[in-house]
């Protein structure tokens, strides 16, 4: 199953041939899905409502833009972006001692502060020159590899003791700490992992766009959309964010093409309704409760 899905992911450009629209759409799908999976590590497994996800994305895209313009190979620049995002995660880590809402407010403000500060220096963003031999198709392959890597990483986390530590922090911090879970270590680990993967996505996204405006790469959409995907699909699993991403993007694009004018209004309503009637997420509510499918999980 997983192999078939992986193969299909790589077959898209071949099947699409020269159809740029399909490749562009697949790129967007893969971008958001990878972001959802990486947000899930902090927000889903470890239960820290991180509203600063866009900071990882933006910092990495910026690092990529600066290093590529300095003459570095773009994909090395993407890696540099990932490392810069780790730095961002470490900068953000003192906020982890805050709980719940306050962590959310803190991370959101930090992201906004960085955005406004950068806008002050580069009001119009940075343009990139395309590198010889790296087309959109190569970028897509790079991203697809990344998506599979994050899936594997999530799968490994799910099967390991790390998940137990993360979930225990999510469910009850005091009890987790009392049972010998090192809160600081595991929270920072979750944030760094999440930040690194997000940074790689931000880097490749920036290179694919060939233009990195701070307004766009630090935009809150890079935080909120992955968050919705995780909440719709169900948090702290591998399948949840994947299914959430497909449902979210499905609804979003259907609305875009049908009720273009009022798509955001309808979309907001859908979000409100899902949270109101299925607070556990769509998957948890429909599949687990209604159909009685047992999930092999310790929670």
């Amino acid at each position: 199953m997983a192999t078939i899905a992986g193969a299909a992911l790589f077959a898209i450009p071949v099947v699409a041939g020269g159809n740029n629209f399909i490749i562009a759409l697949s790129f967007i799908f893969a971008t958001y899905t990878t972001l959802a999976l990486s947000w899930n590590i902090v927000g889903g497994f470890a239960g820290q409502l991180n509203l600063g996800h866009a900071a990882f994305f933006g910092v990495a895209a910026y690092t990529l833009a600066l290093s590529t313009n300095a003459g570095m190979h773009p994909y090395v620049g993407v890696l540099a972006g990932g490392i810069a995002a780790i730095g961002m995660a470490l900068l953000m880590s003192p906020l982890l001692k805050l709980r719940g809402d306050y962590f959310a407010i803190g991370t959101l403000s930090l992201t906004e502060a960085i955005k406004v500060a950068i806008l002050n220096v580069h009001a119009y963003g940075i343009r990139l020159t395309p590198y010889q031999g790296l087309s959109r198709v190569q970028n897509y392959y790079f991203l697809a590899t990344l998506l599979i890597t994050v899936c594997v990483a999530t799968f490994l986390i799910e099967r390991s003791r790390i998940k137990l530590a993360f979930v225990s922090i999510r469910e009850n911090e005091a009890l987790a700490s009392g049972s010998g879970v090192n809160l600081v270590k595991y929270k920072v680990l979750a944030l760094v992992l999440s930040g690194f993967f997000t940074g790689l996505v931000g880097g490749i996204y920036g290179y694919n766009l060939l233009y990195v405006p701070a307004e766009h790469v630090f935009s809150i959409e890079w935080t909120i959309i992955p968050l919705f995907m995780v909440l719709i699909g169900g948090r702290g699993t591998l399948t949840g964010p994947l299914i959430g991403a497909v449902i979210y993007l499905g609804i979003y694009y259907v609305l875009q093409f049908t009720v273009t004018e009022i798509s955001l209004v309808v979309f907001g309503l859908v979000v409100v309704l899902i949270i109101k009637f299925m607070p556990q997420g769509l998957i948890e509510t429909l599949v687990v409760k209604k159909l009685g499918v047992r999930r092999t999980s310790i929670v």
Partner: protein
Amino acid sequence: MFSFEVLFGQLLVGAILLGGLYALVTIGLALIFGVMRILNIAHGEFIIFGAYATYWISHLLRFDPFLSIVLAVPVSGLLGFLVNTLVIKGLTKSFDAPIVSSFGLLLVLQASMLIAWSGDPRSIVTPFTAESIRLGLVLVPIVRLIAFVISLSILMLLYLFLTRTFAGRAVRAIAQDSEAAATLGIPVQRLQTFTFVLSTCLAGLSGGLVAMIVSFQPTLGPEFLLKSFVILALAGVGNIQGIMAGGLILSIAESYGSFFLGSGLRNVVAYLLLIVLLLTRPRGLFGEKQVREV
């Protein structure tokens, strides 16, 4: 005559007047957060809605802007009542359900306002716009002074309501411990609805006042939300004096910060202030010491 002292004083007067309005902008968010434990991400949209309600009432009915505010307040309250009944009531207790739900609400309100009233910046012109009183060497803009006085009186009335009346005390009891309040026979659900409506009324009022001072557009909501966050973090939950002081500190920091660092960094000052505060004083500068929840 123009000297550094005059400039300094002018900045200070502007900051104090703005600080009172900032406190009023925040109080709605603080009430909902304190009493219902809901972080209302759509708070800024209620403020903008109040601004539009005031604008249209004064524009279409040719009413005086200040009279329009009085009429816009119940309109905002009605919107709040609808939102509370349709969206907020019956949400699960988990802390991220309300955040995400109110973010959906933000999208709905912001996009609806954009469709209905376009993204053009608007402002409300009052009979006193661009007029000021001379106070020594410093100029005091009349509209800002009026907004300051209204904000301060409303906050004082609210303080009296919360501390001196039975209903106000019941609201505070719910904020402290809603289950214990329920066992004492306080109608928690009804008072929570009341609080939500009251908060949106206050947001609408502050929106009307804001619209007389700066130009507004539908996408400006999140900026007010973030300012409210800063003040809330300064004040800690549940005290009006703290929020007044917080509004003042924020506006002073912003005024002098943007004067010395350039106006582009105005908001950066606010955000950094917030982060430092969250890390060093998680209960707020004036927050009460509380037993840590387990």
